């Protein structure tokens, strides 16, 4: 970053000075219903200008960080990626026809792929930067970065999905992509309008049960031993609930929470033939849909954290486990891998699927990256929901996920 860069900043500041136009889930749904070319072109231009502004806000935010933090290798890499993306978006000409829109979609998809390493890079960069920033500032910065990232992906992917749907000449019953979308139901763009938490939970359980060697505890001293039995997951409460949400996000959260519950339960009850069941309770209130996952995995009293909410933190000051060698190593590998990390269920399944079965037997579960819980927390807060960890120390953990039911809440405060 040179003197030239310093004087170029004026251009970016013009965009950073603009307000973002935050949306609600409901607006995304209503806009996506009854598509025509004109509306798609309008959508494309909205995405184009909105993403430019949102990226400019992120650049400004990074520019205000301590110098030593942004000169960190990993953070500098993210800064460069953002600056390049900003330049490209800014110079993309306005879209006037469907053909131009298709070009725009290809361009956006390309950028999304280039940015696949941002989450692990930020995570590692800020773990290393923990000594230079108070942990609350560090986490609120990370939260702004990641909520904004989610929001940009939602806008971009929603627009791409709407375009694809339009080209296929149908906005309903489109067969989905990936392992999770077999029973595609009603959707608008990337939003499921009748998402069933029960069905999602059961889908996640089925997937997790397929990969016991990646999910369930195994005695490292005794690699020949069989896996500890997989605990049962019981779903109760308002099991008939459906609501409108982005399924990929909802299932990522549920998948992460269940993964933690299954591992903790199998570890704590490793010497028992039947581990205690995990209970997922769904409730629908006047404003929220909730899922509470209760396990008997022993709770979250750990020497390296002083409260369960430290597990949501990216700061090594709050969570010493972030400095563990195998975590840092695994994050480094992820940053360099072409797949990066998008924080989805599918990419984890792909990774587990690719593992050499013989190798798996001796290594057990993959090293934990410490991304699942903080990212789940960020996903939950994106449209105004929340995630809370409650530890019944010595017995088990309750995780409370709350998501707004009506889709009328705006995206995160700063995007």
């Amino acid at each position, binding site marked *: 970053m040179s003197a030239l860069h310093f004087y170029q900043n004026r251009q970016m500041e013009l965009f950073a000075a603009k307000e973002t136009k935050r949306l609600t889930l409901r607006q995304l749904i209503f806009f996506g219903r009854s598509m025509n070319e004109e509306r798609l072109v309008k959508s494309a231009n909205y995405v184009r200008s909105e993403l430019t502004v949102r990226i400019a806000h992120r650049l400004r935010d990074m520019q205000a960080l301590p110098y030593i933090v942004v000169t960190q290798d990993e953070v500098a890499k993210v800064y460069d990626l953002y600056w390049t993306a900003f330049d490209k978006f800014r110079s993309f000409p306005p879209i006037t026809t469907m053909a131009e829109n298709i070009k725009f979609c290809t361009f956006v998809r390309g950028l999304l792929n280039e940015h696949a390493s941002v989450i692990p890079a930020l995570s590692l960069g800020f773990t290393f930067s923990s000594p230079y920033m108070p942990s609350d500032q560090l986490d609120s910065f990370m939260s702004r970065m990641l909520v904004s990232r989610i929001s940009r992906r939602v806008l971009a992917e929603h627009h791409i999905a709407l375009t694809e749907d339009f080209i296929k000449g149908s906005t309903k019953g489109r067969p989905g992509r990936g392992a999770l979308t077999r029973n595609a139901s009603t959707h608008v763009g990337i939003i499921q309008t009748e998402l069933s938490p029960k069905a999602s939970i059961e889908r996640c359980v089925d997937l997790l049960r397929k990969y016991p060697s990646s999910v369930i505890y195994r005695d490292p001293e005794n690699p020949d031993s069989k896996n500890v039995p997989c605990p049962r997951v019981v779903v109760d409460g308002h099991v008939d609930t459906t609501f409108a949400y982005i399924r990929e996000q909802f299932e990522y959260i549920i998948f992460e929470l269940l993964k933690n519950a299954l591992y903790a339960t199998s570890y704590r009850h490793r010497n028992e033939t039947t581990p205690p069941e995990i209970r997922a*309770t769904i409730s*629908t209130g*006047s404003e929220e849909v*909730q899922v509470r996952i209760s396990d008997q995995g022993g709770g979250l009293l750990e020497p390296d954290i002083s409260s369960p909410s430290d597990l949501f933190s990216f700061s090594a000051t709050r969570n010493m486990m972030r400095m563990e060698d195998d975590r840092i190593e695994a994050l480094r590998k992820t940053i360099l891998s072409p797949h990066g990390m998008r924080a989805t269920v599918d990419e984890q399944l792909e990774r587990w699927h690719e593992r050499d079965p013989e190798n798996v037997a001796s290594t057990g579960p993959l090293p934990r990256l410490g991304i699942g819980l903080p990212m789940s927390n960020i996903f939950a807060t994106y449209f105004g929901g929340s995630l809370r960890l409650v530890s019944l120390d010595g*017995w088990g953990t309750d995780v409370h996920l709350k998501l707004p039911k009506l889709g009328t809440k705006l995206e995160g405060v700063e995007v």
Partner: protein
Amino acid sequence: MFIASSRGSRAFRPALLPTSSPVARRQPASPEVIALLTSYGQQTARPLTLSRLLSFGNPVTQDSILSSASYALSEIPRRLSRRIRSLESLPFIVGTNPHVSRTLDAYRRSFEWLATYPAVRTLRDNADFATQLEHLVHSHANDIPTMAKGFQECYRYMTPGAINEFLDTAIRNRIAVRLIAEQHIALSHALSEYGHQGKHDGVVDMKCSPADMVRACSVIVSEMCEATFGASPEVVIDGHVDSTFAYVPVHLQYVLTELLKNAFRATVEKHWRSHGLSSASDLPPVLVTISPPPRIPGIVRPSYMSIRVRDEGGGVSPHNMARVFSYAFSTAKRSAQHADEDAGGGPYAAQQIGGNAATMEVGAKGDAGLFSEMTGKGIQAGVGTLAGLGYGLPMSRLYARYLGGSLDLFSLDGWGTDAFLKLRCLDEAGDVEI
């Protein structure tokens, strides 16, 4: 009127029930009390720790009991003086409320009695003192319901924030005074009645069993619930049911009773809403999970007993959730006519606040036994009895926090509630300030 010439007649007499006119009770304190209050007001606060309080019982000896008496005699009036000052600082119109002014009178009387009490020099002196102190404690059993009533009538004159803050401080102060007084009373009994020598833990039970306490409280709450609603849910206890920890049983009893009352009532009412009154289907049980602190190497920090009370009573809406820990909020419908019957906080408040001593007070002052009074009012006031004045949760949280613990509520709106209680294990909590 309480200044007596000989020790024999220095009995503590509680305030007379209000027969005088409101004007009479707006009178300022006597010059003697004012002078005493001033001198106590000039003393600097001394931080007190739980281990200091428990030290008098380890072991109980003639000397230690006399130190305990002098400790109580210096510490209690100092705390009462702070209470009096804060009552005197309330807006004038609030001070004229008969319930508030009755409370102030009672505090002044108790303060004066203690502040002028001669030194306790012999075991015989102490036996007198302990008996009188017990009367004093009992005479204050209805303070909280009385103040509750008073502040309910004063909601126009103070902001909810100011009322909450006042009551929080008042109740914390009261918990401390009772702890100090009851510790001295317990040790005095141990020494005089049983000739106990050696270690005595007084108000702390070193092997308090949460499961036993849950069972005992469930019996009482089931009876109340049956009397009011005609049905009550089962309680299932799981987790480490055999575990024990060091705690003040009356505090645990108060908090568990409140939590179970809430859970029972919510369960029955939810069931009615979904299945109707004549439903024969079973009520979902209330699940209480108990977990003692795990011993994990590398963790040196306060240890807590965790207790989770889980019901399927429909939960609390986000709107109400924000107010659930503030005073004078109750989800039970109240009418003017019921408000009168609830004077003094309702029988449940009187019974529960302050534990056993308050129970005796109700029994002593009432015409009938506790249970018949409870059920009698239960039928008259309907739902009002179980729901009381909406002090249960904020008071429970104060009790939990008082010795370093916490109480949190997690609601699954439409389904049920988890009340989550964490209590310090007091055998390792000598540093807790009281």
